[in-house]
């Protein structure tokens, strides 16, 4: 039988690169098989995907050895355009995928390139739009007027219209809010169930929703070294240490089971979702009633590890927004009537849909924007202090030619005591070692990997002159599990009674382990601001902003119901 994809001993090195991006990767994907490719940032997942259609090395030069066959045809002997009939991609950045000016032209693009008859294209455009839940009335809509979620739906429709035997999803949800993410997963789920012979490959850091559909998982390690290629249940349970060791993400259910097994609890089964894990645990408790206290204590310990403890550091009020509004010149109001206060020692999470005004509110809190109405006031009515802001794109913050100079800029500014430059340099060297950037000290900040850029941007903000407010905008975006975890520890370590930290994020599970309070923003207005514990169990409120409760909160509710 002709395989959907066959990769044998594939190695890849980019020009002028010191190390290979892929090192001897082999995989066979049969028709109808669903494969997840995972691994830490920079493990070569996207490079591997681009080799399947010949884009690497035909369009992106690289030294490639090994063999790739797509639908039984050697990729090296075919043109990329011809291979596009057998493989369709959905990439992470919907903005860069769209190339036509209207929705229908975008969805029709690949079909026009194949010179299909207009009537057939028209039929497929209608069908694809209805698959992703976009109304036919949107066909003539200008693609520039779409929201981020709508753009990704159009990109999905454009891929679905191609009707290829193999689909590749390269982190398709990484830039979406949870609601748009759920819609994307639902479409992929439907695609997977719709045709038993269609093969799907998804590459992502975190793709729990699709695990029940996944047949096998390929784990890539450093330099694109293949570490495992097997069924998800055995991989994430029996070889959890290997996956965790690469810095890759473990499903919550496997993470919980690993924790419980490490405490000596003999658990059978290999659940991949939290729902399956809890059903399994109920059955286990029925069979082992004497072990209930041990099991409950162990689960409580896991929850404690995952959810942030209530803040112990209570400082004085640092800043107050009083009915603050912000509207850009000539534009509609983005933030409306927001009143909140920041207290020293607290970490405040800021959540909401894409476009809810989170970043704008963050900029107001940091003092980089002034409210167009309302007030931003300091303690006891004094002038409001300015803050630091760590931008979503770390490159925006870089202003020097080397990593160490970038850090020195902040450190010299923070030393108003006239201490010598040498002392600042010593401190910079120490910080770079602590943050794992020492070996990159002479590199230009733009030459770092995304994870390294993120670490440097955080470091630069931390080292800058004492500002009592520091705002992080989507700091965990694009980071693998290990890097995200380390960043969370760094931010948690910033609790000081004279400093307030604000963290904007879509990743509710990541925030749950960090924040004391959470503010929920809905269309520019503050829907609620309360303790993280109170907000995270308010399903109605979370649903309003397209969020679901964190997995740890779901498990805590299960535990509370049984104790």
């Amino acid at each position, binding site marked *: 039988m002709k395989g959907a994809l066959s990769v044998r001993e594939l190695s890849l090195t980019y020009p002028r690169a010191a190390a290979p991006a892929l090192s001897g990767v082999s995989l066979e994907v049969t028709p109808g098989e669903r494969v997840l490719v995972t691994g830490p940032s920079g493990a070569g997942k996207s490079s591997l995907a*681009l080799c399947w*259609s010949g*884009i690497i090395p035909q*369009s*992106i030069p690289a030294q490639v050895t090994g063999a790739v066959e797509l639908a039984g045809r050697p990729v090296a002997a075919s*043109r*990329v*355009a011809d291979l*596009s*009939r057998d493989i*369709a*991609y959905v*990439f992470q*950045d919907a*903005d*860069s*995928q*769209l*190339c*036509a*000016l*209207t929705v229908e*032209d975008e969805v*029709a*693009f*690949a*079909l*026009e*390139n*194949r*010179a299909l*008859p*207009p009537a057939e*294209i028209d039929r497929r*455009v209608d069908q694809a739009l209805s698959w992703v839940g976009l109304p036919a009335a949107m066909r*003539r809509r200008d*693609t*520039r007027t779409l929201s981020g979620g709508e753009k990704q739906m159009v990109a999905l429709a454009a891929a679905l219209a191609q009707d290829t035997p193999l689909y590749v999803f390269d982190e398709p949800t990484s830039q979406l809010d949870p609601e748009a993410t759920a819609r994307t997963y639902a479409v992929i789920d439907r695609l997977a169930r719709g045709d038993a012979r269609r093969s799907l490959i998804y590459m992502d850091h975190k793709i729990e929703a699709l695990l029940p559909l996944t047949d096998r998982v390929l784990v890539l390690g450093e330099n694109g070294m293949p570490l495992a290629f097997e069924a998800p249940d055995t991989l994430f349970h029996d070889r959890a240490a290997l996956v965790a060791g690469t810095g890759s993400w473990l499903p919550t259910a496997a993470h919980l089971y690993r924790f419980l097994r490490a405490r000596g609890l003999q658990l059978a089964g290999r659940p991949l979702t939290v729902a399956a894990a809890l059903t399994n645990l109920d059955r286990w408790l029925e069979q082992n009633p004497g072990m209930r206290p041990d099991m409950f204590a162990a689960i409580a310990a896991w929850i404690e590890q995952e959810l942030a403890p209530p803040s112990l550091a209570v400082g004085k009020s640092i800043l107050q927004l009083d009915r603050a509004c912000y509207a850009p010149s000539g534009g509609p109001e983005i933030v409306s009537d927001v009143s909140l206060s920041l207290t020293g020692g607290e970490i405040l999470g800021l959540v909401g849909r894409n476009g809810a005004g989170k970043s704008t509110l963050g*900029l107001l809190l940091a003092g980089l*924007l002034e409210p167009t109405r309302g007030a931003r006031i300091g303690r006891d009515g004094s002038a409001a202090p*300015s803050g*630091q*802001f760590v*931008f979503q*794109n770390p*490159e*925006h*913050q870089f*202003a020097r030619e080397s990593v160490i100079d970038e850090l*020195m*800029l*902040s*450190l*010299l*500014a*923070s030393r*108003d005591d006239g201490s010598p430059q040498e002392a600042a340099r010593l401190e910079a060297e120490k910080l770079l070692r602590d943050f794992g950037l020492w070996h990159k000290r002479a590199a230009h900040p*733009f030459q770092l990997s995304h994870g390294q850029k993120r670490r440097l941007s955080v470091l630069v903000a931390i080292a*800058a*002159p004492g500002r009592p407010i520091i705002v992080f905008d989507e700091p965990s975006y694009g980071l693998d599990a290990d890097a995200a975890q380390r960043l969370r520890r760094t931010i948690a370590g910033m609790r000081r009674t004279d400093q307030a930290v604000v963290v904007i994020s879509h990743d509710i599970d990541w925030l749950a382990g960090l924040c004391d309070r959470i503010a929920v923003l809905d269309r520019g207005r503050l829907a609620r601001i309360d303790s993280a514990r109170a907000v995270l169990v308010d399903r109605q409120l979370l649903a309003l902003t397209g969020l679901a409760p964190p997995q740890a909160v779901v498990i805590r509710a299960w535990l509370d119901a049984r104790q």
Partner: protein
Amino acid sequence: MRDSEWRPLHPVNPLTKLAAAIVLVIAVTVVFDIRFQAAVLALIVVVLMVLEGVPPLRLALVMLPFALMGFGFLWTNLLFHEAGGYVESLGRFSLLRGSALDDGIVVFLRAVNFGAVSYAFVRATPPADLARALMQNAGLRPTVAFAVFSVVQFIPQLQDDLRQLHLAHALRAATAQASGIRSLVGLPRRYVDLVIPLLAGAVRRAQRSAISMEARGLTHPMRRSFLVCSKFGRADLVFALASSASLMLMIGLAVV
């Protein structure tokens, strides 16, 4: 939504409209006559308000920059008319010299008409239709057309990036001042600091966009079909006849 409105100029092939606009711009440039210029303006205003449904206030706002520029010409002409040569320098092909005010008004109307004709074309021609017509009827390479579209898609993102960069660099500049590093706040340096990240982002986006298009089969040379065929039909004939007749009539006004 405008799609449901009556837009009688939309079925006309964009290339027919483009040809008519070019001919009209040439006529506006060549025919130095107050009646002709006024008639062209009246015609375009009627087309925009009646056929395209543009509200009068919006039309006035769009025309304002052209009117201001035209007013500049009018004023200059009034001041320097006696010295001669100014109107000729703006392109008057008639040997007859009118009064300072007449010549000035013609130059004023001509500036407004350039704007009005351009706006009417843009208003009556969705960019996607123009691009489709250029690819199907004028031999524009799809690889070039879609590369241009991608750039159009980037513009709002670049604007957003620039806004973020200004804020980030304001923050860093404040840090630099506090650190005593002066070069960072120098003007040329500030532009370099803005341009490098903007370019880095744009290059990455361009590469992603090229990958996405190539992965969907865009190449050169290629045989391509089109979902919407851009044809020349009855609407083009009617439009071409009506445009030619109007132009003749307006030129006639100038000659009589």
